[in-house]
Each structure stands twice: as C-alpha cells, then as structure tokens.
C-alpha cells in the first residue's frame, strides 16, 4: 500500500497497569511486551507522526485537538493512583493539529485546538505515548472523544484526519486508545486474581479480535452499535473509536491483522492489536450503515414534526 498515508494502526488499552506495574500480573506483562513490540515496529517504520484518538479524553465543545508543542506534567490516574505517578514530556505536531482543526471545520464539525500549560492529558494517551514513543522519536497528535458525538461526527472526524495526512504528505501510525469490553471490577482485586469481568465479555472480545485478525476493520465499524449494546458500559452514547479508526485508515476490510496480546485489566478487556493496510480483502460482509462525508448537525426532527 505505497500510496496510503497510513503505515499501520494500533488498538491499545487505556489503563496504566502495563506502564506502571507490568511485573505484577502475567497478562499485564504480556500487554507491556506487546507495547514494546509495537514501539520497535514504529521505530523501524517510515512514519512521520503518531495520531491518537483517546476514549479517556472526553470533550463537550466539539472535538479538542492537542496542539501544545511540548506538554509536560506528572499525571496520576483517578482510580489507579496507588500504582504510581506518570511523569511525561511529549512532542506534538502543532502544524498537523491546526490543519486537522481546519479540516474538521471544512467537513462541518466543530473542533478546537488546545494549547495550555498544565492541560491534563488523559491516562490513555499518557500510557500510549509513554510506551510507544518514549523518546519522542515521532511527533504526535491527540484528538478527544466528544461525549455527545455519535456515528456521523466520529466518521467525519476520522476523514478530516486523513485529509490532513494527505495534504501534509505525512505517513501516520494511527492509535486508538480503548478497551474492548470496558467493565471493570468495582472492588479491589489482587493482581493475580485479575480476569475478564464475565464470560459474555470474554466471548465478545474474542469475536472482535477474530475480526481484527482477519483484517475486517470496516465490518467491525459496521457492527459498532451492537458491540456497544453488548459489552460497553453505557457511559457515552456509542462505541466510537472503531468508527474513527476505520474512517481514518480506510473504510474497508483490506488489512492484515495481528493481536499482539490480550489480557484483563481490572476486569476490562485489554488488547494490543496491529492492523496494516494490504491489497487483499476478505470482502465486505457486514455493510449496511451509510457512509458520510460531511456533518450537517442535528436534524431537529422533533422541532419539525
């Protein structure tokens, strides 16, 4: 895939255990090794930028795009503060962030760039960048997940990211920070007792990973609403990361997939998965949702009834 602006995509978990405590549980250690493998592959690639969509960065005023050149702080997770602090100093591609923001506007989406000292970069982004890009070898860009956004906004947000890559002639590692099943245990557990919260979550995670392994990204995108209903805690309106990932990488099933590791993180499904664009395809099996190029806002159906 010489012409694709996407080198490969990664789907990685948001919780800090692989960064802060990989030695405490075999699964957490395997996730850490998978992060390390992905880091090496990024280093060996010809990518210009790491582009992150994080489910642990919620926003309200449209989508927010991190544009501060060198954000620096010591981050502590709200729940897992006892695992330790996460000092960070990252490097963002501000040019990319500003143009991404402009391209969102061109596709009808409200967005804004963020450039403030002390802005709290979310746990998922801190974990991903610390492990995948520890020396800031590549500049990054992080985009938030709007709490009210649904499919149309998320797809268009992905397309605006791809527009920007094409305009700037940059090759990206696309990173989605999200659990598979995201239900955690609501009590403390010993690290050795960690497991996937339920048999149902486990089965669905395996099904999703099978799709990933077969390179069926757009099929997963088409099945997103079902996945949300089955195994996502109803914190937000939809399971959005897979929509953004497909729209950014290309809405098709032409990928080579590899699950580098899968393990529970306090009950949630954590997986490090790589998807690389290829020419072969398994075919389009699950397509029934419409595609969308521009976001035209709420349709005010109640007002017009």
């Amino acid at each position: 895939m010489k012409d694709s602006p996407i080198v490969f995509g990664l789907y990685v978990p948001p919780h800090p255990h692989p960064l802060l405590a990989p030695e405490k549980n075999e699964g957490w250690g395997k996730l850490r090794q998978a992060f390390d493998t992905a880091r090496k592959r990024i280093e060996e690639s010809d990518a210009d930028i790491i582009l992150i969509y994080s489910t642990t960065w919620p926003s309200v005023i449209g989508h927010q795009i991190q544009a501060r050149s060198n954000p620096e702080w010591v981050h502590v997770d709200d729940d897992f503060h006892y695992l330790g602090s996460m000092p960070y100093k990252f490097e963002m591609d501000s040019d990319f962030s500003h143009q991404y923001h402009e391209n969102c506007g061109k596709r009808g989406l409200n967005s804004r760039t963020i450039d403030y000292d002390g802005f709290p970069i979310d746990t998922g982004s801190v974990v991903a960048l610390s492990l995948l890009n520890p020396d800031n070898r590549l500049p990054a860009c992080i985009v938030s997940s709007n709490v009210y956004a649904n499919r149309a906004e998320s797809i268009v947000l992905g397309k605006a990211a791809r527009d920007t890559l094409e305009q700037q002639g940059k090759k990206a590692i696309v990173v989605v920070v999200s659990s598979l099943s995201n239900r955690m245990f609501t009590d403390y557990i010993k690290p050795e007792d960690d497991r996937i919260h339920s048999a149902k979550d486990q089965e669905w995670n395996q099904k999703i990973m099978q799709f990933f392994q077969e390179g069926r990204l757009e099929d997963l995108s088409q099945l997103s609403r079902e996945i949300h209903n089955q195994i996502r805690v109803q914190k937000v309106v939809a399971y959005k990361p897979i929509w953004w990932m497909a729209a950014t990488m290309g809405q098709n099933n032409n990928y080579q997939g590899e699950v580098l590791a899968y393990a529970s993180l306090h009950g949630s499904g954590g997986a490090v998965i790589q998807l690389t664009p290829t020419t072969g395809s398994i075919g389009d099996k699950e397509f029934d949702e419409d595609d969308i190029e521009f976001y035209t806002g709420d349709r005010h159906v109640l007002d017009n009834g």
Partner: protein
Amino acid sequence: MGEIVAGCLAPHPPHVVYADNPEQNEPNSEGGWETLRWGYAKLARKLKTLDYDAIVIFTPHWQTYVGTHFLGLPHFKSKSVDPVFPNLFRFNYDLNIDVELSKSMHEAAKDAGMVTMMMENPDFRIDYGTIVSAHMINPEWNKPIIPISSNRNSHYYSVEVMNEQARALGKACRKAILESDKRVVLISSHSLSHRHFTVESELPEDMSKQHIYNHSNYVWDMKLIDLMRQGKMDEVINLMPEFTEQTIAETDSGSLTWMMEAMGMPDYPAEIYGYQSVIGTGNVIASWDPNPDTREVVL
C-alpha cells in the same frame, strides 16, 4: 460531638470562577453569570456567620469506578486545568485537607461495607469541580476541605443503584462527622439538568447567548427547586432516577442524595440563592440550614 451546620448545593461550571477573575485563575473575563455569582456571594457571606471547621465536598469530577476514594494527604498545591473548558479555568491552588476527618469518613464507609480507598499520591491533582465550588463559597480558602470521589454507579448499574449507594455513603459520613468533634459544611457540587451546547460563543461570557438547552429541562429544574422550597427532599430523592434520566442531570454523581442523607433528609425549606443556565445546563445554588433561627427566605 460533631455537627453538620449547613449543606449547600453548589454547582461548579468553571464559568463562574472565570467570570469572577480571582488572581488564582489565569484567564481573564469581562464578567458574566451574575445571577449565580451574586447568589454565591450572598451564600459565602452567610457561611461566614457560621462557626465551622471544615468543608466536605462530594465531587462529580473525581470519577472512580473502583469504590469511593478520600484524600489522605494534608496539603495539595498545583494548577487545576479543566479538561473540557481549559480556555476558562486554569486555577493555581494551594489548599489544605482535614485528613483526620477524611480518614474517619473512609473508615465509617468501609465499616458499612462499602468499597473505599485513601488517595495518598502527592502528585494527584485536585479536580476543577471541587475547586470551583470551594472557591465560590469560601474565596478566602481559610478552611480545610475534604473531597470525596464520585463512584460511577449510574454508569455501571443504574441511577437507582447510585441512589442507594449514595444514601449508604451519606449515612456513614454522617456517623463519622457526629462522632468527631468537628463542625462541618457539606457541599454537593453539581448542576441540575446537564445537557450542554457543543458550541461556545466567541466570547464565552456573551450573556446574550446563554439559555437553557431546552424547555423540558427547565421545567424539570423548576419542579425540583419547587420541592426544595417546600422542604420535600424525600420526594426529590425519590424522583432522582427519573429526573436524572430525563435531563441527563449531573445528579448522576450521587452527590445530592449523599448530602441529603447525611443531613437526615431535611423536611424544612431550602434557601434558594439563584438559578441560571451555563452553556445550556441548569444550575441552582441552594442551602439547607438545620437551625430554624438562622434559616432565611433568600429568594
């Protein structure tokens, strides 16, 4: 014996701190949201007349999924930046925690069978909800605070489960306070209806653009405020699941339920200090004064 001298519903849109321009906050504004800010100023004046030792704040913006967490270190100094409105709120804080009372509330909740934890990481940042509410009711910051995290039972189970858990937590905190020698003010930090506009006007404090998200949310907010005025908090708490689901209310945190239970479910009128919408959300400032001699009809 300890005592709860007042309980305040103190919403935390960062806009009110931004509009007030305190020296701790980096951005500058031309004002805005006076109905809320003047209400807060009046409430702050009233609290100054009360004799109390500490402020206990239940905050929706320290969100925990594994139990309820309490702060276990005496002092925090840093900058709190609102992840949603960083353009409005970048607040340099330097605050003290009443760790003794924090620990005893933690113990009481644990003894009652709840999942709890003390947060003892010195790098932890205090959330903007805690800071906005604490600043607006006590801009001098001359009392220690005790923030309590919001366990997201509404997300994981249902608003009904949240209501029950928050009541249990309220009972435990009440027990710990009464068994202490502290006089405390409780703060329930949140809006009522909580649907936001997803666009912000160019000048955030342009008051010609501020209104409630929809009429349904307004009617629900007024229904709750009316019940507060009548002293029917039992009914408010019973309505909580329906209200929260209908208006995507920030009561999903369990904060108001916690406070009402800790105060023994007031059957006397609340003092109402103001109602105003902020970027679509509905916000009321209210206070429950258990002392009939000092209780006022404010608005």
